[in-house]
Structures are given as structure tokens and as C-alpha cells.
């Protein structure tokens, strides 16, 4: 899962040494990988911390809409696959939080930003999962969109992020295939299953396109991130790639993407698509999506309910430490 959503980082108070910045940008231009101990402009550090922590938060919040169907999965194989998928997301979250820590902010602080409503996560998870078909559709569209984005991020200039993306992409590919297979099964199933699949497509298609973020011209972060080799492609190009890939997949299983303007363009060799409802996009980003409050409340509840456990674990570890010291 990923986020190309805006929440601009303020310019740093103390500007970096221009000579060092020039050297840094030259390294990036040569295609070198930036590693945690390397010098980097403060703004690069901040932008990456923002992007990576948003990505980690998205994995964690993304566990909720899918976890919503673990207890109702329709057979044992699907139940296991869904538990495994949600578990993978927890693993991705952990992995990316660790990657973010290499930039100097610890996980606790990042999690607190999420709980305080100060950090963003992918808005797609502010939509509800209403039927079993939503689980298939999320795998197909949402993981599919994530793969398009993360394949690009796997070449990002920051080494730990790029390496995380390589590993995560492999699992996302598996999730996507699984999701598509759920949809194909439903589309070939009973009339009720077919209707369930089409309804999920109708609800998830447009929010999935919004996952790539605003048009490049309106994205406050895109230009700088491209210059610093964090993003190699713009939001619109990635979105188009996702549309091109998905149209044929939908046709293959006889499901209809809910866009009457969808049409192949011989000249550009792209599938043209209709206008995105940016009012909806901004409404959900700003907190008025169908499930923004529920998602945050669920994270806060879990965190609060787990407080005594974390305190106990720390107390026990401290006791062990003390007795080890006394024994020495």
C-alpha cells in the first residue's frame, strides 16, 4: 500500500550548505544509492520520513478493512489466505517503520503521530469493506495500484526504502494474484456472487485511481521527489499505467469498470478515462471519508488497550536486566 497524498513538509529553518547539496544531487544524478549514514539535506530526510512513515501507517491501517472479513471468510482456504495477507501487512508495516528509523525518528514517535491524527495514511482505507467481494477487489485494485507505485519506488534513491520495496513488492504481487483469483471465482459463480463482484468493482475503482494522488501539476511534493530520485515517475503516468494494466484484466473475467468514458486511444496507446472526482478525493483526505473516524478510533483503542501490556513487557525486561547485572 502506498500514499501519494499531499501533506507538504515545511522548508527547514536552517538551509543546508549549497555545496554539499550540489554534491548530494550529483550522487543522485549518477544513480548512487543514499545510505543512512550518508550526508543528506534535511529536507530530503524529512520528505523521506514523511513518505516512509505514511507508507508504514497505510500498511497498519490497511489491516483493518481486510481484517474485517477474516472472521467471515467463506471457506478455510480463503480464511488462511486472508489471515496470512493481513499478517504480511503487519510485517510490511514493521519493516518500513524500521526503515524509517534509519532516518532518525523512532517508531514510537511515528505511531504517536498517526494516533494524534497528524500523520496521513492511504485514503483508500477510509472506505468500508461491505461484502466478501471487497476482499478480492482490494487485492486486485489496491494491491495492484500499490505494485505499480512500489515497482517505481524499488529504484528510489534511499537504499533502505528501495530494498524494502523490492521485498514488499514480491508479497504484494502474490496478494494481487490472490485477489484477482477471488474476483474471477465470484465472476464465474452464482448470479449473486457475480453481482457482488461487480458491485465491489463499482465501489473500489475510482478510489483506487485516486490512490496515485493529485495531478502532478497540483501535487506539492512531486517535483522535488522526482528531482531527488525518490520518485522516478509522476502520479499521472503511474495512474495511466495502472489503468492500462487493469482494463484487460477486467475484460478477461467479464467485469465492467464503471467509467463510460473508458476508451482505447490508438495514438497514445493508452486507455483514456473519465474525470476523477477530486472533491471526493480531498474530502476523504481531509477526514470526511466514510471510515476515517472508525479507522483512527480502532488504532487508538488497540493502542490504549495494549498500554498495560507494553508497560509490563518493559518492566519485566528491566527486572531481567537488573538481575543479570547483579549476577555479573
Amino acid at each position, binding site marked *: 500500500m502506498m500514499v501519494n497524498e499531499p501533506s507538504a513538509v515545511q522548508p527547514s529553518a536552517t538551509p543546508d550548505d549549497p555545496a554539499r547539496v550540489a554534491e548530494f544531487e550529483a550522487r543522485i544524478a549518477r544513480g548512487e544509492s543514499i545510505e543512512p549514514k550518508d550526508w543528506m539535506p534535511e529536507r530530503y530526510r524529512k520528505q523521506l520520513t514523511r513518505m516512509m512513515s505514511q507508507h508504514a501507517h497505510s500498511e*497498519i491501517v490497511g*489491516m*483493518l478493512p481486510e*481484517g474485517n472479513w*477474516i*472472521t*467471515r*471468510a*467463506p*471457506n*478455510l*482456504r*480463503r*480464511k*488462511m489466505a486472508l*489471515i*496470512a495477507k*493481513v*499478517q504480511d501487512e*503487519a*510485517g510490511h*508495516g*514493521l519493516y518500513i*517503520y524500521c526503515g524509517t528509523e534509519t532516518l532518525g525518528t523512532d517508531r514510537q514517535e511515528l505511531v504517536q503521530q498517526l494516533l494524534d491524527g497528524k500523520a496521513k495514511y492511504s485514503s483508500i482505507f477510509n472506505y468500508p469493506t461491505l461484502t*466478501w467481494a471487497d476482499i478480492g477487489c482490494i487485492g486486485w485494485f489496491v494491491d495492484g495500484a500499490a505494485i505499480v507505485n512500489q515497482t517505481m519506488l524499488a529504484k528510489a534513491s534511499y537504499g533502505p526504502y528501495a530494498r524494502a520495496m523490492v521485498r514488499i513488492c514480491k508479497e504484494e504481487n502474490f496478494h494481487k494474484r490472490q485477489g484477482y483469483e*477471488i474476483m474471477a*471465482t*465470484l465472476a464465474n*459463480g*452464482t448470479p*449473486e*456472487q457475480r453481482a457482488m463482484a461487480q458491485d465491489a468493482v463499482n465501489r473500489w475503482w475510482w478510489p483506487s485511481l485516486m490512490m496515485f494522488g493529485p495531478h502532478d501539476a497540483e501535487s506539492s511534493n512531486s517535483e522535488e521527489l522526482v528531482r531527488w530520485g525518490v520518485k522516478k515517475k509522476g502520479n499521472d503516468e503511474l495512474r495511466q499505467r495502472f489503468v492500462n494494466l487493469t482494463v484487460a484484466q477486467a475484460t478477461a473475467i467479464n467485469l465492467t469498470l464503471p467509467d463510460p468514458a473508458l476508451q482505447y486511444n490508438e495514438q497514445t496507446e493508452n486507455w483514456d478515462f473519465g474525470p476523477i472526482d477530486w472533491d471526493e478525493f480531498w474530502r476523504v483526505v481531509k477526514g470526511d471519508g466514510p471510515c476515517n473516524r472508525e479507522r483512527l478510533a*480502532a488504532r487508538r*483503542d*488497540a493502542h490504549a*488497550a*495494549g*498500554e*498495560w*501490556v*507494553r*508497560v*509490563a*513487557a518493559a*518492566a*519485566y525486561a528491566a*527486572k531481567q536486566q537488573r538481575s543479570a547485572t547483579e549476577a555479573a
Partner: protein
Amino acid sequence: MPISAQPGFVSYLLRLGDDRLVLGHRLSEWCGHGPILEEDIALANVALDLVGEATLLLKLAGETESAGRNEDALAYFRDSTEYRNALIAELPKGDFGFTIVRQFFFSVFSLLQMQALQRSSNAELAGIAAKAVKEAKYHVRHSAQWVVTLGDGTEESHARAQAAVDELWRYTGELFLTDAVEQEVASAGLGVDASTLAEPWHAQVEEILRRATLTVPPVSYMQRGGRDGRHTEHLGHMLSEMQIVARSHPGATW
């Protein structure tokens, strides 16, 4: 002797499978709501193992029964009165302390049971048990570590862990009940009579509780009924959620 001449074996396999399916389901309810991310992963891991074991056991039960029911038919189209899990598995997940103490009690039992079942005269069951032993070893290690941590952590965690031990203790006796089914499979070399596992279970559990500074509750009446399909009120609710999609679309494939 052919399997079909062992009517108790199907009931026995249902007990094994249902324990793990129901407990795995309860654990999976934590997914996304754990106290720390590492525990979201660990509890999902245990849930996955248990549901995986249940799938194999119910599949074998269906094949042994030879009445055309596969593992999904057994999981999704039996009512609570047809379930054969021990009551301890179906209790709501409670707080993290309750979940951990329950998991510890069950995992120690499961490891002993599966170790014995590796010698089952039924090759398939012996194979499932060999896989389950590896998994149960981790489940015991994970839950025992947490029991000690919570018991010997803070005043609050100690109190919560002790409350869980006190609440759950009366459901542990059922795990070791013997009856005609247990005796039949044991004498046929297919299974192990659960009553033979009580002594090693008590030894291991009480050792960990002692390390956790927790008190073993006094002997009291032990709840029972699950092995005969007489459950708590909780199982019906759990199954109504678990089975809703499958039962809403009879005959559908997923």
C-alpha cells in the same frame, strides 16, 4: 482393521479439528488490534497454524466418515451442537492476558497430544501430528514467555494474568476427560487417551505459573460439555459470524 470399522475415530478427529479451528478463529479476531505490532504478527501466526491444522484434521475426518463432507462442509455447515471442541477454545478472546493464558494452557496440551499422535497407526494423522508438533513447540514458547512476562511484570499485569488463570482454570479439566471415544481410539492405536496427558500438563503448566509468580487456583468443579456438543452460549455467536457468507450462498464455490 479398516478405518470404517472405527466409528469413534471420526468423532475423535472432529474433537482435534474443532479445538484448533475454534481457537484459531478466536485468535484471528486480534488481527489488527494487538498491543504491539510484533504481537499482531505472532498471534496471526499461531492462528494460521491452528486453522491449518484444523483444515487437515477435518479433511481427514470427512474422508474417514465417507459421507461426502469435506473440511469446509464440516466447518461451515455444522451447528454449534455438532461441534466437538473443548469449551476453553470458544470463550471470547478477552484481554491480551486472557488470550495468552488460554493459549498457554491449550498449547501445552496440544503439544503433548500431538507428540503422542505422531505414533498413531493412521499414517495421515501421524503426519499431521508431526507438523503440528513443530508448530506447537513455538506456540508453547511464545505463550509461556508472555505468561511469565505478564505475571512478573507490573502489579496490573500480574493481577490481569492471575484473573485469567482463575477464570480459565475451571475449563482445563475438560481437556483430559476420558470417555468411550478416547478409549476406543487409544486401544486401536489411532489416538491417545487424553486422560494420560493430565499429569505432564500439570507439571509443565505449574512450573511456568510458579516462574510467573502466579498462583495455581484451588481444585474446583471443572466445566464440561464441549466434547458432547453442549457448549457455552458463546460458540453459537462465533459460528453465526464465521458461517454467514458460506451459508448465505449454499452450493457456491469461493
